[in-house]
């Protein structure tokens, strides 16, 4: 499938001979060459660089009390001090990598679990489909943040639990999208051939169906990564993140907002870094969606319009 093939969603009707081995790489490459894709990639790369290289170039230890509480920026402390008098710049440089790592892990968990559930529901049908989709309905009955808070209140605020909770709350939405994307792929001839050759269901799903889902997977991964950061930073902001002395962009915003009038940079800089990252992932995802679907709409919008007109032979 190429860009010159408008409206052909990956899930729709690409003829078999056009499915390439690394279709997703080609799509991603095209997306990155559009202005939006390039902007998104630039923003994401910048924030990732800050988070990854930051700890090695931070001028001071992040936990050391070096200046006045909410001290103004100076030549020695470029961004001033936080509420305890720690160096804001060092804490910003140190406070991102774990947040990003946790968000990426949660996204991988969510996409993995969601894809497995959605694919199984679409391919196995029948009772499996029913059970999976009803479970999805139940989890979707909670707002994501509330579900995460509920899990944390039960089992205590542990980092792996936050990752797992956020990942799990992604899974139902991913499962829905991938279920509908794989429903008609599982009816294709090459899938039937594989079945007739005696391939086991798990192998059919992994080797025959999954490769055709690279586009919805990529778009979902981008969306979920954005939401992961939003939710994780939000949880940290609410006080459910790394325990206190550790620097974390979300936590910093909350800790230092009492001193906004004294040293606003202690709040502004972490907020801006988080915003740049989420805006970057969102723009990049949008670019991928546009290239892959050839539609001037975001996938979730397409899905919504679609839900209302299921029998009319498609809307886009």
């Amino acid at each position: 499938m190429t860009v010159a093939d408008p409206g052909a969603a990956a899930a729709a009707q690409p003829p078999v001979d056009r499915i390439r081995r690394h279709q997703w790489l080609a799509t991603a490459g095209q997306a990155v060459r559009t202005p939006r894709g390039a902007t998104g990639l630039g923003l994401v790369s910048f924030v990732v660089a800050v988070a990854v290289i930051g700890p090695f170039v931070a001028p001071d230890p992040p936990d050391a009390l070096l200046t006045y509480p909410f001290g103004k920026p100076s030549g020695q402390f470029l961004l001033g001090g936080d509420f305890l008098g720690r160096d804001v710049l060092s804490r910003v440089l140190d406070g991102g990598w774990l947040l990003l790592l946790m968000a990426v892990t949660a996204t991988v968990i969510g996409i993995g679990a969601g894809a497995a559930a959605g694919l199984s529901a679409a391919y196995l049908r029948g009772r499996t489909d029913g059970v999976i989709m009803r479970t999805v309905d139940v989890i979707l009955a909670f707002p994501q943040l509330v579900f995460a808070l509920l899990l944390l209140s039960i089992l205590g605020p542990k980092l792996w639990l936050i990752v797992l909770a956020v990942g799990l709350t992604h899974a139902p939405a991913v499962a829905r999208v991938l279920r509908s994307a794989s429903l008609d792929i599982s009816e294709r001839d090459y899938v039937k051939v594989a079945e007739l050759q005696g391939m086991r269901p798990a192998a059919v799903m992994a080797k025959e169906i999954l490769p055709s889902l690279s586009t919805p997977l990529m778009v979902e991964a981008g969306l979920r990564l954005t939401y992961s950061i939003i939710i994780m930073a939000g949880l940290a902001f609410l006080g459910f993140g790394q325990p206190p002395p550790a620097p974390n962009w979300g936590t910093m915003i909350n800790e230092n907002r009492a001193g906004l009038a004294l040293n606003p940079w202690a709040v502004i800089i972490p907020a801006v870094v988080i915003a740049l990252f989420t805006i970057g992932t969102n723009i990049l995802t949008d670019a991928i969606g546009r290239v892959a679907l050839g539609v001037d709409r975001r996938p979730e919008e397409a899905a919504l319009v679609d839900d209302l007109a299921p029998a009319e032979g498609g809307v886009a």
Partner: protein
Amino acid sequence: MASARAARPEPSGAAGSPPTARPRPGRAAHPVLDLLGQRAAVGVFTLFVVSVLVFLATEVLPGNAANAVLGRTAAASPAALHRLEAALHLNRGVADQYWLWLSGLFTGNLGHSLVNGQPVWGYVEPRLIDSAVLMGVSGVIGAVAGVALGAFAALRKDGWFDHITSVTALAVTALPEFVVAIGLVILFSTVVTHLLPGVSLLPPGTYAWNAPQLLILPVATLVIVIVPYIQRMARAAMIEALESDYVEMARLKGVPMWRIVLVHALPNATAPTIQVIGLNFLYLAGGVVIVEYVFAFPGIGQGLVNAVDNRDIPVIQFIVVLLAAFYVFMNIVTDVIALLATPRHRIPR
């Protein structure tokens, strides 16, 4: 993706499945009632499962509530533990406990907060009202603004307004609520200007409408966060309507533009827009948690965060079930309104 869904071969007959996909010749006279009944049944079932899960998770998994509340203060003496267990009915069987709790949900007898001993309903009720005001005001303003912006962008598709709003929307949808909230606080109540109160602490006994100026920043935050979604959806729906055959027909026979937009296109763009507005009310149910926390606005979101902080289990249980009920209810309402707003779906096939 579009045609993938359209080609869905098998109606799953439950929430999330298309309302029209259940042709049942004998009694298809009221597709709306049909859908309503079906969705309500699924909704009640979902809520039942939710209540069981919430109950089991909070009551049974982590030792028990008595340990949680006493363990927080000091090492619990066995006698104190027993007294509290009896007060919380923890000495009964799980099914009994669940039944007591479930009937409490309907009679309003929800027990007492483990932290301050207040009755749960008395603690949650004023918060519920304030949150409802916050969500209602934000939802209405957001919906009107979003639809207006979306329709306008669609009318001048690919014009400068369309481009600016679409790029802005893309950026703003990606912003976490607390970043928007902090940005507004910086702009309007601390660093840049001091025009608005940055803290929405309501005096006890007063409600949000007694102090409307305290609502401005929380509402503004929520509106900023939801408008882009509604705008994009309204735009997409409007463009689709404007490019349809019947609008083409109306244009060809010389119907004036305002009439095409208001009479022909807008009604057909309503259904998907209503869905997205409904989804945004759902979103607001989660979004208020952070926004209320930022502004110290005494709603259920802030109540939930405090309760989680203190492991105040009866309060957590009630607020979570309340939010889930709102979610399920709004889903049904949204679907039914969207169905009513789509004439072709009202007719039985």
